[in-house]
């Protein structure tokens, strides 16, 4: 005869069944998660931020936590821009950093890092300038922003006039380092405005507080004069060749024929070196090794 | 003797429900409780007993009428300084111990440290909670909570003690203890005002009662005046004779074995019954005259209204 299960026995069986069920369910959900993960899905991590019209709007939705919101978006942006697999990630670079800047205009890192990403990785100089201009506008006491912009203008796009403007702006901000005025003077030289470049370097020379700066200024002055003289001399050589069918034998010939009033000497009083075969004039020594 | 409580034409209606329907609960209550007396407030469920008490205590704002406690209008909180209150089904802060709760109550009455130090142990002893005094109140049984409630009602040595169903939910031993305490109040000259459904207890300890039905006081007066001494009927228990033998003399209420319980209304007939038992060789088991009780009056009043 089968003995019916006692109540306690029934309880025990029920518990065992329950445990078995739980283990099966747990195994099931872990397995399914692994399987679902393997399915590839179109994913744009966090890029819904692109659709926010502007930081102005976001400012009101942060309920007094603007600084924190700026931090979090900035942290996200760093991760976003270090993910090489997202091909179009640079499309909204300025927009995203504009949001961060509007939320916390005094947060310095995003301006610099944003400009860096723009120049180095996105190769979008326009965005870099937009970011740095915002930085300068919101932080008029920070010289680093016009300085970085001037640097980009000078080195990356070689827009010397723009560089000059930025360096000039940098110089006006208290705390800007001395060498910025030299960068400006150099930009003016590269721009081709030799007259102003001479005056600027002269000014730096006269105001120089130490020997090293004086020496640098002096070398630049030498270089400017040499460039002015060389340009004039080479033009005269070309005119001589036009008139006489051959280049002059030496530079004095130019003075003798009246093409130049007198043959200039370099800033140290030395002669320039003339090569009759090429018609080129150069300095006896390098301006930077005087 | 001044009036401890004086209520005149007390009215209160409530607006209930989503579409407010006004229900008149108190329709003009007037009564007074004299100082030093023990007063019972009776009525069927829903008559307005608790509402009256809540108006008295300032928990509910009456629509009209006046309430004075020892002559002071009830609206000022100061009128409750000589008052102690024990609600029905008392609820207290369950994370406090009885001792802490009494200390808190003492603070509310402005009692100093010394006074509290003297009174609290005495009260705990009085209500029989001395041993459980440091357990949190959530561990208390219903009866223990009732006792704690009584203790907190007495912390300020009140002149007027208001009790809402103080004897409900207690076992017979507890009820006796509470009854004794209430009687002691009377000896101490305190005024006691309480409601109860246990009419036997009210009959035992009250001086005066009021019966409220449907929001109106329908009877008020001292027990002595309300309850006459006349005998309503006599209960006779007889054995050895069949019920039929007593036809015409009394009403046979019940039969068990060979015992018959009779209700004899006419006093004269009682002697006849006794004689009959004797003649027919039966046995008279018991004979008890029943006088009018409060319960009779209560039921009569309520059914008549």
């Amino acid at each position, binding site marked *: 005869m089968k003995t019916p299960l006692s109540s306690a026995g029934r309880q025990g069986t029920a518990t065992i069944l329950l445990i078995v069920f739980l283990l099966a369910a747990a195994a099931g959900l872990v397995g399914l998660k692994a399987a679902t993960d393997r399915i590839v899905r179109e994913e744009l991590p966090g890029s819904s931020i692109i659709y926010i019209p502007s930081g102005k709007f976001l400012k009101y939705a942060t309920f007094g936590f603007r600084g924190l919101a700026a931090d979090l978006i900035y942290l996200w942006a760093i991760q976003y821009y270090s993910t090489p697999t997202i091909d179009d990630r640079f499309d909204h670079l300025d927009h995203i950093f504009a949001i961060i800047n509007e939320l916390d205009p005094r947060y310095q890192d995003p301006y610099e890092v944003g400009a860096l990403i723009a120049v180095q990785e996105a190769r979008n100089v326009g965005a870099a300038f937009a970011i740095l201009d915002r930085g300068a506008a919101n932080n008029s006491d920070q010289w680093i922003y016009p300085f970085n912009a001037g640097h980009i203008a000078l080195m990356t796009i070689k827009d010397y006039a723009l560089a000059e403007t930025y360096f000039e702006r940098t110089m006006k901000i208290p705390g800007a380092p001395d060498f910025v005025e030299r960068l400006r003077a150099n930009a003016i030289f590269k721009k081709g405005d030799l007259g102003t470049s001479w005056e600027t370097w002269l000014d730096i020379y006269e105001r120089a507080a130490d020997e090293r700066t004086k020496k640098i200024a002096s070398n630049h002055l030498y270089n400017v004069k040499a460039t002015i003289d060389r340009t004039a001399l080479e033009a005269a050589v070309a005119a001589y060749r036009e008139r006489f069918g051959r280049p002059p034998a030496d530079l004095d010939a130019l003075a003798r024929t009246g093409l130049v009033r007198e043959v200039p000497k370099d800033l140290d009083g030395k002669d320039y070196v003339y090569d009759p075969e090429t018609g080129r004039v150069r300095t006896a020594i390098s301006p930077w090794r005087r | 003797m001044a009036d401890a409580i004086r209520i005149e034409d007390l009215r209160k209606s409530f607006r209930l429900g989503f579409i407010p329907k006004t229900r008149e609960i108190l329709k003009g209550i007037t009564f007074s409780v004299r100082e030093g007396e023990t007063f019972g407030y009776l009525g069927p469920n829903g008559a307005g007993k608790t509402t009256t008490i809540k108006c008295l205590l300032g928990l509910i704002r009456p629509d009209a009428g006046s309430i004075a406690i020892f002559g002071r209008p009830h609206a000022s909180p100061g009128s*409750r300084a000589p008052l102690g209150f024990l609600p029905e089904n008392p609820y207290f802060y369950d994370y*406090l111990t009885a001792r802490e709760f009494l200390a808190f109550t003492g603070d509310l009455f402005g009692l100093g440290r010394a006074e509290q130090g003297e009174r609290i142990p005495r009260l705990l002893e009085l209500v029989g909670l001395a041993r459980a005094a440091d357990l949190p109140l959530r561990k208390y049984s219903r009866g223990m909570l009732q006792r704690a409630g009584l203790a907190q009602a007495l912390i300020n040595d009140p002149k007027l003690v208001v009790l809402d169903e103080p004897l409900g939910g207690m076992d017979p031993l507890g009820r006796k203890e509470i009854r004794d305490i209430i009687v002691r109040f009377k000896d101490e000259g305190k005024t006691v005002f309480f409601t109860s459904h246990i009419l036997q207890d009210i009959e035992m300890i009250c001086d005066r009662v009021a019966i409220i039905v449907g929001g109106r006081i329908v009877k008020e007066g001292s027990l002595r005046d309300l309850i006459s001494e006349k005998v309503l009927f006599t209960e006779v228990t007889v054995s050895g004779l069949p019920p039929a033998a007593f036809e015409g003399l009394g009403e046979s209420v019940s039969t068990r074995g060979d015992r018959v319980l009779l209700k004899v209304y006419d006093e004269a007939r009682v002697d006849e019954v006794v004689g009959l038992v004797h003649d027919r060789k039966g046995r008279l088991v018991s004979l008890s005259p029943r006088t009018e009780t409060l319960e009779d009056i209560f039921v009569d009043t309520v059914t008549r209204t």
Partner: protein
Amino acid sequence: MKRIGAIAGITFKEAKRDRILYLLFFFAALGIVASRVLAILTVGDRVKIIKDVGLASIAVFGVLMAILIGTGLVYKEIDKKTIFTLLAKPLHRAEFILGKFLGLVLTLFVMTAAMTVIFLAIVYAHTLQVEGRLLVAVAYIFLELVLITAVAILFSSFSTPILSSLFALAFYLIGHLSWGLELIIKKMAPGTGRTLVRILYLVLPDLENFNFKTEVVHGLPIPPGIYVSSVLYGVCYTAFILGLAVLVFRRRDFV
């Protein structure tokens, strides 16, 4: 006065038994400590992240504490009927409200102080200095919490905890959107419409008056006038809300 103190005392005792308090405190501490981990992800200034997250944790969890506990305070007394014995004492209803309020403020003070200690410790671990200015930000966050507490108690005196929490939360959100109204006013043409919006703007709470997080984190100067002005605003508004609560509470019948 002693009665208010007695009620504040038991309110404090009751509040500190509420497990929600410790749960929220745990999350706040977690947030503050996690700021260190978050800071590692940044390029540049790490301390700013730590300070921003820390102050935000104290503010957010402080507000949650104030709302979640405050909205239950008065409601529980009414629901559990402990209020019957309480109001039968020679106690003004205003004293009851004030006592509950002060008890909760005391609880929040202890909690805020504890969170601040952890916060300053984390900042110290990173900068090796204790910045007094952070305390200024925390102090004004606390003032904001005090006001929110008053609001929570106001709603608790006539509404269920869930509804009260929603209303109190709405108050907090509206309080931080006040400058949205300012913008609207600027864009409106003068007239009755604008006057109405203006009145609304002046009456609705402006919780940004207590928000010095950005200034403190960036080391920006705070005009000294605003210290006093904000404190007075906070005290005044709190008194107003408590007054409303007393008004509502006085008219209540406890059936």
